[in-house]
């Protein structure tokens, strides 16, 4: 993974000192809350319902064991012993005291971590395929480009006060695990027919109040011109994005208002005026970053592990784990292991300090010191030898981390919702727990198959409900928690936005409704068709009828 050099470290020290100074000025009254708020937000510090919340950046979801241990230590020392993984592949702590934050930032900086730009109207943490460097599908390593974007966007002098927040996602695989089509900018690395490396550039996707699947504004951007092109995109947005209405300030609104073609034309016109040699990264720097990601000490192993095959034959739980949580690796004899943070009854995305320590140990011992956070709020050990899978599975199982439900109905994305978040209208976590309980029987969950349920506690859509196969949006209906269901969304390569099923349901009817939807699906499913594909084939009506007819009888 990328290793900080002295320069990167000095930068973090300076940033940490700056924020320490700002906190002191706030506590002494030199800064008002209005002046301080944007400063703390740019350091990932929110004031939530019960305490401050610190969101730590995990660039493109990538951590090493030492960093994971430090996060566990912070959870124990300054929080209530756990951390929460977010849909931006970050980790956030929910019980932070303002006066501790300068010390926490120092502790993070010691392991090359920070909380910069995890909030505020700036370029946020860059997300990427969590299988980067491990999947055989990719044409190049998206982390190289994500790191380049991370550095370029860090305290960018021109683009730190944008009309609104700005999110990048990068993938290099056909299977989209980074939701690139619902980001402000989504980048898909590919090779042109002549072999040249480049990006398909998607701009103006997004969720929130006004969701869009983003249009492609450039089919093939030569990879070496990435930074100048992004500068052009950001400059057009910074100058022309709306600033009069917070709900219309995202770049998606500008792109939609101008039309993708006109927006693309404006970007091209701006790009033509940017001096490439001064704006684009020199090849030497790209090579330096690339070098940090290439050397992985993979062993030469047979593609099939007798140890693993034998163990699977004996242990049905390992076999189930293998079916659902173990994914193919590019290197023969290795596998990508998904660690579910969605045990039945658990808060989706939470990991305790002890669990984090265990993950750090396993990463060191079995996964080449590499851990990933996924946007689905799970963790990944990306480079595990097949021979080691039984041991890894056993260790995970001991810590309650071996739930074999990746992409199944109980692998639910949920934002913190009204249990923590100052913006939420309704709770998301208890709804997720209720639904997961319906799929507690793992045979049932596997029979149902891939089903991505995503829950947001408000229209800001941190829980990605617009792109859930089943999306659930919490709303406040005359002071009551109600939940609006939508079907048919996808954040993957077949991206689409869900359609609202019908009137919102009260909290205690949601899990039953999901059950009903699944039963309706199983009745009309064709072969092993996914829920999403059945929905796309038969449409909304049968589902609508099932849920609302059922509600009438109740």
């Amino acid at each position, binding site marked *: 993974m990328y290793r900080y050099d002295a320069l990167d470290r000095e930068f973090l020290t300076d940033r940490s000192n700056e924020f320490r100074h700002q906190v002191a000025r*706030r*506590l002494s*009254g030199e800064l*008002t*809350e209005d002046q301080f708020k944007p400063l703390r937000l740019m350091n990932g510090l929110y*004031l*939530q*319902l*019960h*305490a*401050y919340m610190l969101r730590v950046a995990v660039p493109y979801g990538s951590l090493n064991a030492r960093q994971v241990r430090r996060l566990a230590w912070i959870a124990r020392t300054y929080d*209530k012993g756990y951390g929460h993984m977010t849909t931006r592949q970050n980790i956030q702590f*929910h*019980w*932070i*005291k*303002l*006066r501790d934050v300068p010390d926490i930032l120092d502790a993070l900086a010691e392991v090359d971590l920070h909380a910069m730009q995890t909030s505020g109207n700036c370029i946020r943490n860059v997300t990427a395929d969590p299988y980067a460097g491990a999947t055989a599908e990719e044409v190049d390593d998206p982390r190289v480009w994500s790191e380049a974007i991370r550095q370029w966007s860090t305290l960018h002098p021109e683009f730190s006060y944008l009309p609104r927040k700005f999110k990048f996602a990068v993938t290099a695989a056909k299977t989209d695990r980074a939701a690139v089509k619902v980001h402000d900018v989504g980048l898909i690395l590919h090779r042109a027919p002549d072999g040249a490396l480049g990006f398909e550039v998607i701009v103006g996707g997004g969720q929130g109040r006004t969701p869009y699947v983003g249009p492609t504004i450039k089919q093939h951007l030569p990879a070496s011109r990435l930074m100048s092109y992004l500068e052009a995109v950001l400059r057009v947005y910074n100058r022309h994005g709306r600033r009069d209405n917070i709900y219309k300030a995202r770049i998606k609104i500008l792109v939609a208002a101008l039309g993708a073609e006109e927006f693309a034309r404006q970007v091209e016109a701006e790009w033509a005026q940017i001096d490439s040699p001064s704006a684009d990264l020199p090849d030497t720097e790209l090579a330096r970053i690339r070098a940090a990601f290439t050397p992985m000490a993979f062993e030469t192993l047979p593609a099939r592990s007798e140890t693993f095959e034998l163990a699977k034959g004996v242990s049905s739980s390992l076999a189930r784990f293998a079916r659902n949580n173990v994914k193919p690796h590019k290197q023969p004899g290795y596998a990508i292991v998904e660690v579910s943070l969605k045990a039945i009854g658990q*808060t989706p995305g939470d990991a305790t300090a002890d669990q984090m320590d265990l993950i750090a140990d396993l990463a060191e011992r079995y996964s080449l010191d590499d851990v990933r956070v996924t946007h689905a709020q799970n963790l990944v050990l990306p480079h595990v030898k097949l021979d080691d899978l039984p041991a890894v599975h056993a260790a995970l199982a001991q810590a309650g981390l071996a739930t074999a439900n990746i992409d199944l109905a109980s692998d639910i994305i949920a934002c913190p919702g*009204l*249990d*923590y978040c100052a913006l939420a209208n309704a*709770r998301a*976590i*208890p709804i997720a*727990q*209720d639904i997961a309980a319906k799929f507690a029987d793992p045979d049932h969950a596997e029979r149902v198959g891939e089903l991505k349920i995503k829950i947001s506690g408000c229209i800001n859509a941190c829980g990605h409900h617009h792109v859930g196969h089943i999306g659930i949006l919490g709303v406040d209906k*005359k*002071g*009551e*928690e109600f939940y609006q269901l939508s079907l048919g969304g996808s954040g993957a390569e077949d991206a689409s936005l869900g359609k609202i099923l019908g009137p919102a349901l*009260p*909290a*205690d009817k949601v899990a039953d409704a999901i059950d009903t939807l699944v039963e309706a699906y199983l009745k009309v499913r064709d072969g092993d068709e996914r829920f999403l594909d059945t929905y796309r084939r038969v449409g909304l009506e049968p589902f609508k009828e099932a849920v609302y007819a059922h509600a009438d009888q109740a």
Partner: protein
Amino acid sequence: MKALTANRLSDGDVVFWNAGQWVERFGDAQLFDDDQAEAAEAALAAGKAQPLAAVDVYLIDVAPVEGGLAPVSYRERIRALGPTNEPTHGKQAEGGAVVEALRHASGAARSTGRVDLIRRK
């Protein structure tokens, strides 16, 4: 009835106003009857005049419920208790009659369909 609430600047903890001071328990909050609107407004102004003590100062509606009093909105009940997914986190950890009343408060101001705040098993 109203009470005045805010978050403490130094640690973000939920606090309630009582006679010129911020206190941590909802049960210790000063209550302003409906005919004390002026006193409530005066407390609001006084609370806002302490920007180094607390931020986000605002009045909330409070109503009688079985076993005591509770904020009318469930958002405020969660603030007074702690998160419902972690019954040992936040103010609810210490238990007691006030906490129980808050937990079981349902539909203080509105009568239909409200779900209890306690964790549903």
